[in-house]
């Protein structure tokens, strides 16, 4: 339905414009829905008792292509069944050769202009499988656990931990005491009147003696525990974001296999994470830091493959620097070169653009555009649109060169749609005739994922807006409030009447 609605609206626009004699093009197509598609194929493999690692990268990708040929046409078939007035000779897929070339071209240029960089990001990690997991590869299950109330002495209080609560020490509730050595702050909700006096104070992290600040942050729920939480940026996704907001240090205290490392402290290094939990609780108790323990039910994520409890882990990921792209993209909406209908969505757009964060574009999967970054054994790293045969620095052959194993976020190809589908990076007749397009129709829930990014890409790589009008309409959702169809991107555009628009809704 979501698709049908969007398709109908675009169809009305395209037919109206064409009858009025406007030069009209509606490019139908889909994106490759990286994570969702890879999951479907992996599930099928599991029925055969195999993992993707058993096939190896090349054979696995081959399997996904086969699957795509067999089932990937659903969205396009829907468009045909609806009688949509698309130009079928222009049908495109984000993994097509031409579109893939556009992706490599854009990434390489961004790499050379320092618009992409590698930085820390927190990912889901299975200590047993030794791989990163996407959000939808995690199975959440109810867990009967505990909430430990731990005392952190306030710096400057003469009495130390044995004094008066919230004056001489604060009480922090946590479900994961083993991560305590990685704390770099504690946080309270800025509106929580109980703790206004703590703003700007410093507390002592038990067992380590390290001093950490008390920060006000909206993320903290007043109702959770005491309303004071510990912030461990290297081991919790929310804490990671809090850390980014406040510029906190990220202390990684765990190894990839789920054991503690030396940053956890000499007493804990080498211990398994759950063993470590018991030891730390015992040590807190012995030191007078443990106030009390409560039973606590919550949800714990497990690896969909091996059912091990999942960790959050810092890892190196690729990011796009969004600020320089966002400035231009705001300007073209501010000066009316792009108009949103309804107009009120422009505020939503500006709001997001003004607070934009860098975009993590690498994914630890195999189905997608592999990141075109190469490293030679000599240490040289570079990006290239073609697979290199020799190192440009030392001249070593291909066997000395390794490519980044990750693939790019699916949106990294969708954001190029308005020009990649018209033949860019070549200077084609279609580009001259139809770019910039006129209308983009889509649902408001992908303004940021897709619309804003297309505007950025168009302004940066074409030097002009990708479309003149952004038309937003309602989304139809099923009873479970999820988008109803597989993630895919039928997208369309035309010139005098353009239109475009995927409604990719799956997990990203």
């Amino acid at each position, binding site marked *: *339905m979501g698709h*049908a*609605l969007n398709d*109908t*609206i675009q*169809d*009305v*626009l395209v*037919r*109206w414009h*064409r*009858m*009025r*004699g406007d030069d009209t093009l509606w490019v139908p197509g889909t994106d490759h829905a990286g994570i969702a598609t890879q999951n479907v194929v992996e599930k099928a493999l599991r029925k055969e008792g195999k993992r993707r690692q058993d096939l190896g990268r090349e054979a696995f990708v081959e399997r996904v292509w086969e699957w795509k040929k067999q089932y990937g046409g659903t969205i396009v078939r829907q468009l045909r069944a*609806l*009688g949509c*007035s698309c130009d079928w000779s222009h049908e495109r897929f984000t993994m097509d050769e031409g579109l893939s070339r556009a992706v490599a071209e854009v990434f390489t240029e961004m790499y050379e202009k320092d618009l992409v960089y590698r930085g820390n990001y927190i990912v889901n990690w299975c200590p047993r499988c030794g791989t990163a997991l996407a959000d939808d590869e995690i199975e959440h299950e109810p867990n009967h656990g505990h909430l430990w109330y731990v005392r952190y002495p306030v710096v400057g209080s003469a009495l130390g931990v044995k004094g008066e609560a919230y004056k001489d020490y604060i009480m922090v509730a946590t479900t994961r005491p083993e991560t305590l050595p990685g704390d770099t702050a504690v946080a309270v909700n800025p509106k929580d009147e109980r703790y206004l006096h703590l703003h700007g104070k410093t507390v002592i992290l038990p067992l380590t003696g390290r001093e950490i600040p008390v920060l006000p942050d909206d993320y903290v729920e007043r109702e959770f525990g005491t309303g004071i939480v510990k912030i461990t940026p290297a081991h919790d996704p929310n804490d990671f974001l809090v850390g980014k907001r406040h510029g906190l240090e990220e202390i990684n205290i765990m190894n990839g296999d789920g054991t503690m490392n030396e940053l956890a402290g000499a007493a804990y290094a080498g211990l398994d994470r759950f063993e470590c939990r018991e030891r730390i609780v015992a040590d807190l108790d012995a030191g007078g830091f443990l106030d009390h323990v409560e039973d606590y039910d919550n949800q714990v994520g497990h690896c969909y493959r091996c059912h091990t409890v999942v960790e959050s882990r810092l890892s190196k990921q690729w990011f796009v620097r969004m600020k320089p792209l966002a400035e231009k993209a705001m300007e073209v909406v501010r000066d009316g070169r792009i108009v949103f*209908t*309804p107009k*009120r*969505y422009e505020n939503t757009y500006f709001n997001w653009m003004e607070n934009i964060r860098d975009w993590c574009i690498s994914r630890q999967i195999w189905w997608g555009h592999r990141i075109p970054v190469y490293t030679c054994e000599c240490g040289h790293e570079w990006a290239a649109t073609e697979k290199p045969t020799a190192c440009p620095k030392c001249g070593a052959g291909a066997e000395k060169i390794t490519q980044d194993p990750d693939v790019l976020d699916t949106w990294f190809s969708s954001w190029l749609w308005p020009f990649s589908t018209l033949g860019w990076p070549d200077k084609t007749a279609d580009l001259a005739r139809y770019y910039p397009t006129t209308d983009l129709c889509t649902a*408001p829930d992908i303004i940021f994922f897709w619309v804003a990014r297309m505007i950025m890409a168009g302004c940066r790589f074409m030097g002009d807006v990708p479309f003149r*009008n952004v*038309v*937003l*309409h*309602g989304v*139809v959702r099923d009873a479970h409030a999820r988008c109803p169809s597989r993630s895919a991107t039928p997208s369309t555009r035309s010139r005098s009447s353009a239109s475009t628009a995927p409604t990719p809704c799956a997990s990203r």
Partner: protein
Amino acid sequence: MQTTSPGIDVFISMDKFEIGRNFGTKIWNAARFIQMHASKVEGFSFAAYAGGAGDAAPCPQGEAASLSLDDRHILATADAALAAMDTALAGYRFQDAALAAYDFVWSQFCDWYLEEAKRDLYGDDPARRAQVVGILADVFGRALRMIHPFMPFVTEEIWHQLAYAASDEETISRAPWPKPYTAEQKAAWGLDEEVRAYVNARHDLVTAGRALRSSLSAIKPSDKVAFVVSAKTAEAADRLRAETESLAGFLGASGVEVLCGETLSGMPSADTALGTVALKLEGSVDAEAEKKKAQDEIAKLEGFLRTVEAKLGNETFLSKAPAAIVEQQKARKEELLADLARKRALLDSLG
């Protein structure tokens, strides 16, 4: 056809869902009707009305001077609907565009103009028959193209069935979008706002007269009853007098007497922009029996009203009942008050 404003709610293709289906049936019936009458006109070609040749000659055949008020009204209304659609689509207001097309085709074209045209189509003037068929073909051809973006399948099918398409290869999706009538055409045919306003007001008057009929239980749909109209102006009276035959047809009346500036009392009546329309009771209706019936119904409604008011005055009910139930009772009260007002007016008019 449930549609949406941009950014809100859900837009639904007219081809699919129930109202769309009913609308489709309505258009099909209109198509068959027009085709049947066109087949009786020697050498008639729908293709001449497909908007080709720059939409140059949609002109109804025959003398412009012989166009009726209803002809002029439907041509002017088609033009207005086109303008409304273009404005709405240019602003991405898909709901407004769909509603403009829907209202024009269903209410204006099918419910009023086709009915009005029947008298001439079944009449004995061949020149006038040909003229009316020409107008039908022109307006319907425009309507099909206007609906096409919303109902691509049905409109394509009819476009070929009626041979607006000159060959199988042609498609309505490539037919030109209708163009507004030129200023010259409008002047020559007398398409102006004044005509639209008058005919719309006459439609309102007929609608009000029909409501009077149905408010009296003694009158069966097949009964011929007499109406009287007291026009507000002499000009309106003249126009209505010239159309009593048509008015009687639409009202299912044995006759329509047109007066000017008179107060009509002792009869069920309704005020409209053109004047007061009233139902003559002598002969056709037993006034005393209707009075008794109205009084009984008023008593019954008053009883219901007391019950509802008692509930709404009860603090326990207001505090305990779910909000939706309370709202329902409030709506029921409004409904009863409106019904009562209508029945009391009817009783008054019965003298």
